[in-house]
């Protein structure tokens, strides 16, 4: 029936109109870092004095309200330092800029984490869109939110602080090659490129895009490739072969798929961020509820949905504990004092990770604020680690050192 055919054609057209990924680099291609990203191996360390403080923000979803509360409560207590370096992963990237810019932005920070609901962050995608974007939800609202909070003026403020030697880093994961990418947000803000605002926003959205839950963000990277044009068919008649003309380099643009960097490294911290800060202090602010053994209904039903959540949640928690321990090690290696805070044991009414509810986020914010204002939030031992075990290890280490022969 012609009308039926027309309807099917329209439906197919609508479906095919859904986005698929833009062109990625061919397999095996060594793609350079996109502009704004830093190579941890060669990156210049920030800081250079024993007064340096480094803050790394971790935690995602609605729980970032706790981190925001701690920052504002810290201001209230009058002891909040000016951080030489701020690093963030996951949704904490949303609040990282305000944390970096300091107490003058506490009001915006508070409004940000207590003024949004879930539909301001993501919305369910239709099945066809879900299949073509690789995510359960669309992040259109999140992008709108980021566009509202990140504007040219904010970038200018970040650039000003960058010029003072301060650094702001946000981490994402390049899904195409499975590596972490650390973005120097101050360098992006300081750039004269016309796409600095777009790049800054892209990174913040990508950092908040938990894979599968939210669609990835595609970030362009330009690279020089050699022309692979065939040698001319006009071969000399005598059969001699002229040397093939050297391939001409040309610029190609490829797109990298980026998602939440916490997938690889829940606590963003690279050694170059600490290298010159000996005698300083590292603060690890975890908007994380370690109390919650599981973040899904138990016993788990035999459903794809619930098993997926169970595995993802367990993996995320294990990764977090591993990373905090790693941060502890890095701090000790560079003779930096280690401090960590997380949502305290027994804190009630912690909202669910991906549910942004203004009321419960306000409670969580207030909890963080109160703890920080009372100066009670920081510990010197990572969560998941027994003090006794560390002391035993130290004793064994000391005993081994004393038993070694003196040269």
């Amino acid at each position, binding site marked *: 029936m012609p009308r039926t055919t027309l309807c099917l054609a329209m439906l197919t057209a609508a479906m095919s109109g859904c986005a698929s990924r833009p062109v990625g680099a061919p397999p095996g291609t060594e793609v350079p870092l996109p502009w704004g990203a830093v190579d941890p191996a060669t990156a210049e360390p920030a800081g250079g004095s024993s007064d340096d403080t480094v803050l790394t923000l971790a935690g995602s*979803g609605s729980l970032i309200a706790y981190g925001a509360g701690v920052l504002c409560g810290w201001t209230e207590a009058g002891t909040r330092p000016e951080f030489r370096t701020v690093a963030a992963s996951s949704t904490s990237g949303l609040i990282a800029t305000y944390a970096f810019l300091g107490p003058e932005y506490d009001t915006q920070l508070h409004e940000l984490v207590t003024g949004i609901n879930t539909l301001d962050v993501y919305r369910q*995608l*239709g099945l066809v869109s879900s299949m073509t974007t690789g995510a359960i939800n669309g992040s*259109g609202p999140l992008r709108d939110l980021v566009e509202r909070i990140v504007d040219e003026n904010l970038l200018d403020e970040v650039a000003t602080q960058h010029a003072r030697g301060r650094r702001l880093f946000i981490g994402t994961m390049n899904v195409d090659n499975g590596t972490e990418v650390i973005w120097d947000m101050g360098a992006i803000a300081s750039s004269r490129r016309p796409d600095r605002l777009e790049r800054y926003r892209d990174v913040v959205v990508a950092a908040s895009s938990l894979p599968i839950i939210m669609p990835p963000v595609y970030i362009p990277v330009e690279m020089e490739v050699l022309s692979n044009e065939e040698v001319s068919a006009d071969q000399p008649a005598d059969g001699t072969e002229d040397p093939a003309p050297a391939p001409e380099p040309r610029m190609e643009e490829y797109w990298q798929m980026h998602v939440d960097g916490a997938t690889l490294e829940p606590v963003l911290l690279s050694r170059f961020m600490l290298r010159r800060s000996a005698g300083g202090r590292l603060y690890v602010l975890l908007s994380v509820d370690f*109390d919650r053994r599981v973040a*899904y209904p138990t016993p788990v039903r035999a459903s794809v949905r619930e098993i997926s959540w169970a595995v993802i*949640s367990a993996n995320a928690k294990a990764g977090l504990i591993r990373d905090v*321990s790693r941060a502890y090690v890095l701090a000790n290696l560079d003779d930096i004092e280690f401090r960590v805070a997380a949502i305290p044991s027994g804190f009630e009414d912690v909202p669910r990770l991906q549910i942004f509810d203004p009321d419960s986020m306000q409670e969580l914010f207030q909890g963080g604020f109160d703890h920080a204002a009372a100066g009670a939030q920081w510990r010197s031992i990572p969560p998941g680690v027994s003090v006794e075990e560390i002391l035993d290890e130290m004793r064994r280490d000391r005993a081994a*050192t004393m038993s070694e022969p003196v040269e």
Partner: protein
Amino acid sequence: MRPLPLLVIGLGVATGAYGQAEEEDADQGEGAVSESTGQELTAQQEYELQEAEAAKKGSAGFFQRSADNVTSQLKADWLRVDGLFGQDAISKLGQEFRAFNEDLRFTTRLDLGLAYTVLWQHASAGESPRSAASGDFDFFGTWHAIGELGRTAGLVGFAVEYRHDFGGITPSELNTQFGSLLNTARPFNDNSSGLKQIWWQQHLADGQVYVRIGAIDQSDFFSTNRFQSANFFFLNDAFSQSLAVPFPDAGLGVVAFGFPNESIYIGAGIGDASASGGSFTADSLSGEIFAALEVGFLTAFEGLGAGHYRLTVSHTDAVPQRNKPAGEAFAISIDQELGSFVPFMQLAITNKSGLTSVRNIVSAGFGFENPFDNAGDEFGVAAAWAQPDDKQLSDEWVIESFYRLQLTPTLQFTPDVQFIINPSSGTKDVVVVGGLRFRIQY
């Protein structure tokens, strides 16, 4: 450099304050059920958030279509309340279905609903039989195919129904037994079963516009009010239909609604004026058009609630095969929340004889939500005056009252009484029609 306790790397066993609750949780034992739920939004949470978002945006969110609309019924199902007896055996079955439906929704984006409504009515006067009963099984749903829900979504929707009698006459025939102009429960008949609706709904402009195209029911969209459903509220035609507007049966058509701002909307629809309930095909487009245009005003008075004010004009082409002339109708429909008390009023007039059985009608009444603190209950009283199209017949009045009792999250029981005063072609001054309605919805 300080001694480095390498032991810390990879430690997964937590003790001390951070880990305390882990042990407590572990002690819950087999079968312990945590109150925490999954990380992604459930359908109920999503609908709740949409409600909250609508409230936050102002009055636009209170835009209501008919309660019988497929999306309205799905929403009502996900937002259901405990009811008088709470989670009884039926509701546990319902919970299983709900969990299945939630998984289905997550994996396929199919959102399905089932409902069965049965109505028994008895008239105090008229020819025998004076009792009537029928049942209506509804299966409906949407499939979210593309785009972001509420912003750019494209949905497929459908509604299938099976209506049946119980051996006697159906409530839709009861009015003929005592000569009433107004049908005492029009949807409860046995003559319309099958696929009633199938459509595509597309949200555009960040949700400020939506278009529905396909086999649709125009009366779901125009000149409605919040009480206009014989499945949930009043049964009589005077309140459950916009009677003087010559709506065709569900058929091929398109409707579009746009919200230029939070206080106003404009809706337009075109459909097949000759559509005959449940028998639409592409070939049923005979060229006769029904068209409607509605301007709606949405208000939200501080401390009172939402108000919805609608002006609707419609036109229908002549439908010769049914001896229907071309003509126009004009309708005003208002409902205004005053806390839990919700008065409403409707007026509809036509400019041509023969369009509908009613030439002019005015109805007014109120609903009272949750009068005895049982969430889901609704009490309503309304009165109407109807002028027959046939000038040989006398004007008719009707007063109706119902009390919808929410027994469980899935079961409603509604006693209803109608006073038909001066039935247009009847001999009695007053006929009382009592009714009992049960509805189960999953």
